[in-house]
């Protein structure tokens, strides 16, 4: 089980701020595919991902208990 935080447009598209999903020991890339299947209306392309509050690469592994955040292009300031 992992926790996924969603923000900005992605949060609105999916209609939730937070998801709990059964996923572990797969790459970020695989997680994106998993979510694409679950939410075919949403696009996860070109969105950065953080694992436990650190930016991650598509090849990084997600483990049970991790907190994942999908980070669309930022616009602070």
């Amino acid at each position, binding site marked *: 089980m992992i926790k996924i935080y969603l923000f900005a447009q992605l949060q609105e598209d999916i209609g939730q701020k937070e998801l709990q999903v059964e996923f572990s020991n797969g790459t970020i890339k695989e997680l994106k595919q998993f979510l694409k299947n679950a939410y075919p209306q949403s696009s996860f392309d070109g969105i*950065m991902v953080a694992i436990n509050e650190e930016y991650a690469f598509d090849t990084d592994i997600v483990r049970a208990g991790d907190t994942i*955040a999908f*980070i*669309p292009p930022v*616009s*602070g*300031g």
Partner: protein
Amino acid sequence: MFTIVQEPIRVEELIQKVESPNAGAITTFIGTVREWTKGKRTVYLEYDAYIPMAEKMLQKIGIEIQEKWPDTVIAISHRIGHLNISDIAVCIAVSSPHRKAAYEANEYAIERIKQMVPIWKKEHWENGEMWIGDQLEKTPYPTEKPPLDGDRND
């Protein structure tokens, strides 16, 4: 020193945070909500952030600045929630023995914020709304240098 806040930002507080007997200069950058952008009238803005990570990333910017401009002291506050025209969205204060470093470090900080801190702005116009995402290059941190995008929303 590095906070995401919900309430109005008080510039004086940030200045106090960086005051030091070693300082001969303090620069403040105040980012405010602009009414007109490319012919469109903003009614208000809404900011959201991934707060724990945003604060962590602001701290990272602080570390980068310490490495590049060793004698500086820096404080950053970014506000989230509903902001009206002219409200302060972000304030960056940098103190330094000499002014050049205070100017340079301050500008560096806002460029880095716009590049990699997980904060989002939603425009509310008279006839619509949109989450703004303005990064052309989405490279995971760390990068060597902030890219100088041609299409920045600042």
